[in-house]
């Protein structure tokens, strides 16, 4: 299994229901900057036309996760399905993982004096038979889709085969598994609302990247 998530980010209306659901489901510390998931807003204008883009995000559960390799105690580890997990009991608060993560996806949970991050609700929902994460289940505009990349017939892979997508900070070489779906309409606007250096992928172009990263991890 290889858990991942697709995000139809242009559907996001910034209602923050996902953030609330995540905190409620997973017992995340209360506090505005204590987030496992978040929606960031970006405002700008193109030829005088103002626009606002909402960017929902969370841990990318990278296949080549630098946060796992820097952790001295194995508190950051790959769990079933390639999920990047943080074991609070083993965390010595060296903060190496926070430094290593290019996505700023980790924070210190002051209640447990340990680093915390998104788990794709693995321990609170997926192992209990649910097939969705809390953020996916609560989203009114169906931004997120959680699934298994190894399941070729699954909804996630089928979607990725159908739609173009991009990943964040691809040049960091982390092989992230949050797939941002490139809009099908108004593509000119969409291209302008993401960074110029962002590569737009198809399933055929990204699948070999995933396979190579998994092979590398198995070797090590």
């Amino acid at each position: 299994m290889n858990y991942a998530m697709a995000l139809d980010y242009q559907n996001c209306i910034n209602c923050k229901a996902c953030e609330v659901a995540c905190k409620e489901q997973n017992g995340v510390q209360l506090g505005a900057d204590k987030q496992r998931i978040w929606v960031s807003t970006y405002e700008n204008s193109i030829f005088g036309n103002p626009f606002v883009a909402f960017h929902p995000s969370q841990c990318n559960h990278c296949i080549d996760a630098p946060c796992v390799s820097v952790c001295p105690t194995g508190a950051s580890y790959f769990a079933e399905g390639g999920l990047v997990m943080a074991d609070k009991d083993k965390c010595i608060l060296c903060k190496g993982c926070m430094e290593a993560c290019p996505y700023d996806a980790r924070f210190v949970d002051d209640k447990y004096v340990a680093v915390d991050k998104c788990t794709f609700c693995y321990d609170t929902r997926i192992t209990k038979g649910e097939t969705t994460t809390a953020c996916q289940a609560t989203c009114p505009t169906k931004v997120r889709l959680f699934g298994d990349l190894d399941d070729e017939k699954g909804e996630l892979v089928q979607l990725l085969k159908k739609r173009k997508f991009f990943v964040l900070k691809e040049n960091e070489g982390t092989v992230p598994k949050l797939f941002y779906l490139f809009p099908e309409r108004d593509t000119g606007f969409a291209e302008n609302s993401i960074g110029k250096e962002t590569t737009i992928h198809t399933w055929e172009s990204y699948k070999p990247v995933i396979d190579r990263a998994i092979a590398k991890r198995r070797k090590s």
Partner: protein
Amino acid sequence: MKKYEIAGIEINAVSISELLFNKTMLLAYFLLALGFYGVWEVFAERYFLLTANAFDAGLNPGSTEVAEAMKEAVFGAGGEVKREQPWTLYIVNYMYMIYSGSAIIFFVALSEIFNVKLIQKTAAGFITFGLAMVFGGLFTIAVDLNILHMHWMFLTPNIRAGMWLMLPLYTVYIPFVLFEIYLLITNRHDWAKKVAYGILLLSIVIDLIEYYIQAKLFNMNTARHLWTTYPMLTLYFIVSAFVAAIAIMILYSYFTHRRSLGDDFHALITFLRKSSLYVIALLAMYEASAYLFIDKEWGAIILFGEYKIYFYAYLFLAVGLPFILEFKEHSNNLWIILGSLSVIVGTYLGRYIFVYGGNAYPMSNRFGMGFEKYGEYEQAKEFIFFSPHSSEILVVVGSLGVVLAVYKILDTLFSVSKIREH
């Protein structure tokens, strides 16, 4: 002075008051008291801050503690670690103390191999001071880490992580240095002749491994391009540590050997001054070329952005000013002392820029369109700059107390600063 002998080591028979209540120890206690106040502040913030999650709010609807915790969550500035800047003054001080301390030991080992008589004569004192600095660095990092979970370093080690590699390194390194000190204070000439070369070579190898691991520790943070694009990080750590170490050795010699070393004192200072000039020149060459290789985003912030004052102050204090002050031989040591003080401040500033600079470019530009806000009530940041928290500064002050206390106790018991034979 009356001495006891245990396992060949002569121990000065000093009273408890001579050992623990001399002037140096009183100063150390003062610094330690400030340090432990800082530790108390850190621990109060870390372990006793009122926090709550959604479960607490649901299970204890009327609790005033939960209400206070929720108020803290929204309006408070609690929690010592910020997501945008995980490594702070603790790492700066840890790096400075450990690198400079081990560089002193490295330099003494090198001098032993090259038969530099002046350093051989004073080796025990220098190495002991270097080791005391290593303990000062370890004290700082011990405050930074969650000590209650440290046993996992042994139970589930990740042996490829730079952070973990520090553990076996220090468990080998510290006894090794203690053994070197043991050989020096027991005047084992025969041993020193037969084994010392091997020991000293091993000491250098261990030092080199230490610098390599420390470089690896920073290099593994692939998202921080200041650290990963810095060319030859191991070499940089060695050179900059040597610059600081020799300045510290000059100051140490001034306070310790000024009167006791007689004519050799001037020769020692001259040797250290000349050595200092070489390593300062090396550091200048490194800094002049290193920024050609550094990621442009980080380079821009440090060379032309918000860090430029600190960077140029670092170059002026660690390279420019001491080079001018120490270039010519003076009859008065004041210029060399001033130069050394300038190097110590400057190289500390250099470490500060290195650690804080690594965090300077926010990770929050995830979509390549601009920086996102860290907190709901914050502005988006184009660069990150935090001033150290007062408790961090106090812990750093406390680490100076650790250095003084460790050194002074060893010196009072074994007279390491007075050993002249080799």
